[in-house]
Structures are given as C-alpha cells and as structure tokens.
C-alpha cells in the first residue's frame, strides 16, 4: 500500500480488514486477511473455487462470522453487538449468485420491503424510490410481476435494484453472473458498470475478466484462504508476480 493511502483519514476509508482469520471447525478458510478499501474504490476479487473469496465478502456484512482480527466498515467495527451489525447491514448492499429474491412478493414489494420495515419509509415514497431504481436497471414494466415470472438476468437486475433501495454506501457482489445464461450476462454487467461510474464503492467476486479490466481499480487474487496478490488491472493481467496467479490466469484466459 502506498504512503498516500496510509495517510488517508478515517473518512476516506470504506472498509478496513486487519489480520482477519476464519475457521470452519478445523478448516482454516481465511488466513490473515488485510485489506483497505477506499471510498468509491472498485475491487474485483478472483481466484479458484474454494479459495475463500465469497467467505471473505460475506464476513463484511456478517453473513459469516470471523474469529480473529478486525473488520471496520464505515468506521463501525463488527462485533457481536447486534445493533452494530444492523447498522452495517443497512449501509452495505449485497447481490447474490442465485439472486435470492423473495418469491412470494412482487418485484415492487421486493424492493420496498426493507425500506418500509427497516427505514420506516412511507409506502408511496418507498414505491417511488423503488420505481426509480427499477427504471435504472431498465425493468420498470415488470414491477407488478412475481420473480418466478422473470428471466435470470431480469431477476438479478431486480436484486440489484432491491439493494439500491436501501441507499447503501457499499455494494458487495458475490458472483452475480455465474448462475446466468450467457446471453444475459451483459445486461447485468452493464448495470454494474453504470453503478461503478456513479462512484459506488464496490467489491465484486467474479470471473468476468473483461469487467475487471474496464471497471476495477484493483484486482485481488485469492488462493487457499490468502490474498496472494493485488494490483491495478493492467499490471495484474500483464505482469502477474506470483506463480499461482500466472497459473490461474492462464487457465481462465485460455478458456475465455
């Protein structure tokens, strides 16, 4: 990390992870993770499956508990304090590989559920905000439909809109395009790119290297629970330092 980054005041840091470890029983999933994410920074995390990428970002909003080290989000340290966890979850949006939309609610109700019950927003206002974000992800006409009636790509865009309705300052993406048919990947990536252009702080676990090249400020490579390498995309793709990174890149780019 550069000197300049270290001098950053607390205000400029969105997420700070210091010496974080996590175990599943005996299995050491995350080993000494250190990561500082600045406001507005876009980070792409890649690595072979089982390397702990998803687990790491799921620790940031406490879907998974870490056992050692510190995670500080927006100046709030994650502890067992339920109130702090709630506070952080309201600031951090998350998009899942399998969308996880609520199938018993319409698209619009999916988007207004949390604003109404968590932020206590009046219904009309919550619906107006939801429609605004549904327009942004280009599916306002589907508002009255149920998730089961939409295609995968549309569902994932609804999931993004649903997160945005809570006005998060940070967005986490957990392999958002991995469960999609190939022709639907670009519609979701386009949405993510426009979000990035607006200055959202983002951490994306993805294998879309094209997305990494165009959007990321930094690419992280993880293997066996460790961050092996991190660099701006150009450097990362053209001049990877570690052998494991080189091997991974050769496999993934060969297939692409």
């Amino acid at each position, binding site marked *: 990390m550069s000197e300049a980054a270290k001098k950053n005041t607390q205000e400029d840091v969105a997420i700070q992870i210091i010496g974080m470890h996590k175990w599943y029983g005996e299995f050491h999933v995350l080993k000494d993770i250190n990561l500082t994410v600045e406001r507005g920074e876009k980070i792409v995390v890649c690595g072979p499956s089982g390397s702990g990428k998803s687990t790491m970002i799921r620790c940031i*909003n*406490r*879907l998974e508990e870490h056992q050692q080290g510190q995670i500080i989000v927006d100046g709030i340290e994650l502890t067992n304090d339920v109130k702090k966890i*709630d506070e952080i*979850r*309201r600031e*951090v*949006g*998350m998009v*899942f590989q*399998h969308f*996880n*939309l*609520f*199938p*018993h609610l319409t698209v619009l109700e999916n988007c207004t*559920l*949390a604003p*109404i*019950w*968590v*932020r*206590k*927003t*009046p*219904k*009309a*206002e*919550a619906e107006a905000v939801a429609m605004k974000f549904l327009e942004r992800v280009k599916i306002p006409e589907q508002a009255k439909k*149920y998730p*089961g*009636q939409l295609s995968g790509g549309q569902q994932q865009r609804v*999931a993004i809109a*649903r*997160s945005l309705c*809570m006005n998060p300052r940070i967005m986490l993406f957990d392999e958002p395009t991995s469960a999609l048919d190939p022709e639907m990947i670009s519609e979701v990536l386009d949405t993510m790119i426009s979000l990035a252009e607006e200055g959202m702080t983002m951490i994306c676990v993805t294998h879309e290297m094209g997305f990494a090249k165009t959007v990321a400020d930094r690419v992280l490579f993880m293997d066996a629970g460790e961050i092996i390498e991190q660099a701006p995309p150009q450097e990362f793709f053209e001049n990877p330092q570690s052998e494991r990174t080189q091997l991974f890149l050769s496999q993934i780019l060969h297939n692409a």
Partner: protein
Amino acid sequence: MTTDIQGHATGDSKLRDPRIRAVIYQIIVITIIVLFAWYVAHNTIVNLDKRGIASGFGFLSQPAGFGIGIVLLMDYSSQASTHLDVLIIGIINTLAVSLAGIVFATIIGFIFGVLRLSKNWVVSKIATVYIEVVRNIPLLVQLMFWYFAVLSTMPLVGDSIKFGENVYINNRGVNFPAVIPSSGFWVIPVALLIAIVLSIGIRNWAHKRQDLTGQIFPVFLTSLGLIIILPVLAAVVMGFPFNISYPDFGRFSINGGWSLEPEFLALLFGLSIYTGAFIAEIVRSGINSVSHGQTEAAHSLGIRPSMTMRLVILPQALRVIVPPLTSQYLNLVKNSSLATAIGYADITALFAGTSLNQTGQAIECILITMLFYLAISLLISMFMNWYNKRIALVER
C-alpha cells in the same frame, strides 16, 4: 377391420378412438359397481327380514334409557331423552374434544417445530426427544397412559391437590370455580365483541398509517390489551354481574363449580400431544424448505431475524406446511373415536356403541356415524384448501 398390403389399418374404426374407448370402460365399471351395490343391499334386507329387525330411522325417536357421563350444552335424562339426543350429545362431545385438540396441537406443534430448529443445543434436544418419543408410541397406548397411569392415579376427592384457592385436581378430574351469569351479564361478551371489532379497525388503521408515514404501530400488543381490558372494564362498570360458584366437597361428590372429567382430559392430552409432535415435524420441514439464501438476503438488507421470520420465511413456509397440516387435523378428528377405549362419550362410543347395542340398528348407526366423520373431514378439507389457495405462490 381390414388391413392393406403393408399391414396398416385402413378405414376408421370408432373402437380405436381413445375417447370412445374411455367411455366404454367407464360404462363397464359403473355397471359392475351398481350390480355389486344392489347385491349387498338386497342381501342385507333379506337377512334383516329373516332376523326380524326393522330397518329405518324410527329408532331415533325412541327413548334411550341409559346414562351418559359427559353432557354439554344439553339437558339429558335417561328416561325422556331419545337416541337422537344421544346422537347430538355424541356429536357435541366429539366436536368439543376435536376443536380443543386442534387448537392445542397447533400451538404445541408450532412451538416445538421452531424450538427444534433452535441453535440452543439443550432446547433443540428437548424438542427432538419429545417429538421422537411421542411419534413412536401408538396413540391408543398414550391415551391409556394419560387415563390409567396419570389421571386415575390422582388422589381421592377428599385429598385433592389444590392449586391456589379454588382449583382442585383429583381422580375425578379437575374442579374449578364456575361463573354463573346474572342480569346484565350480556355486557361482558358485548364488550369482548367490541374489543375484537376495534382490534380489526386498529389493524387497518395501522396499515394505512404505515403506508402514509412509515410509522410501525404495535398492533398485536394493543389488540391484546383491548381484548383483556374492555371486558374487565365492563364487568367493573356493571358491578360484576355474575356469581361465582365454588367447588364444594360433599362426602361422596362435589357440588358447584365446573369440572373437566378425566376422560375428556386424557383424550385431549393424548390427541394434542400426539398430533402436536407430527405438526412440529411438519412445521420444521416447512421452515427448512425455505432456502437459506432467503434469510441471507433479508439479513443483508438489514431486516432483523424476528422480522425475517414473519415477513420472509413464514409466508413461504406456510404453503409447504398447510397441506400436510390439513391431514393432521383430519387425523385428529378421526382419532378422537379412540375415546371408546377410555370411556369418553363421543359419537362413536355413544351412538355407534351404546345406541347400536341397545337398538340393534347396526347399519343405521354406523352409517350416520360414518357420514358425520365424512362431513366434518370434508368441511376441514374445504376450509384448508381455500386457505392454501390464498397463500399459494404465483409462478410463470
């Protein structure tokens, strides 16, 4: 049928049309059934004639001439009351124990189903032990356990166990004070009714207010408060328009107060605890059927665990829970006929038992009893199907 050189069928034979074949098969099946039914009916009539038993429902108006242990909502005397009265008492008793059983079994089932999923090791193990023990012992044996091993071994009336001032438990059941309405009592049920109507109004108002301002109103607590406070207030204002009759212990019997007979209690305990264990498993599997991703999505939006259960998990779990829950309710009603074994006066014990034995009208008694169970079961099914449709998911 003719065939051409290659062996293909030629011409149109109506007999090769599956729709026409289906009609023919159905006609054959119906003919067989009608013939069989006619044979059975004819045989029965001939045999009844031979033994000199008159068929028909005339016996319903004859006096019953036997005593009944538990009579609710009716006046019954062994001299004046008829077999029709016996039938009605049997129906009331069956409905009473079934309704109470369904309510308690549902409460027990939902509580233990959720407890079994608890992350607390002790709590979840307690729930597991209850479910596994109760599900794997025959209901008849459990009824006998409650009746003979638990309730019959309670102390004699003279040595009743006392709970508080006026509740007594002994081998004749539970005795507790009765409320005897006096003039002006009607105000209290009316107050209760008003409280219920108000609660519904408050719910609607709270909905609208939340839509407009976003404020969440504690509807449940307010309603609970209203439903308790209003009737109490009415009682105070009317100067307590009722007399309380306390159980009074005579030498051989107990006068005054209300009592729950051990037969009723044993059947109620047995049915609710047994069915509750099955409902607990249904609830558990229903909640488990909602993918963990739903919980994670709700949590990631900042929705608290209790709210997640109410807004996201339960609405989806219910559509898995309701169909098997229906069959548990039906089982409970039908299993209540095991009352015969412990002497509770349900429709089976009274009408298909005593009345049948006294009159010899086996076919009529059994037929009426079967029709009753059938009608109740169909009613429950219809209600639950309606409810299930209301909560069904829309897909494609």
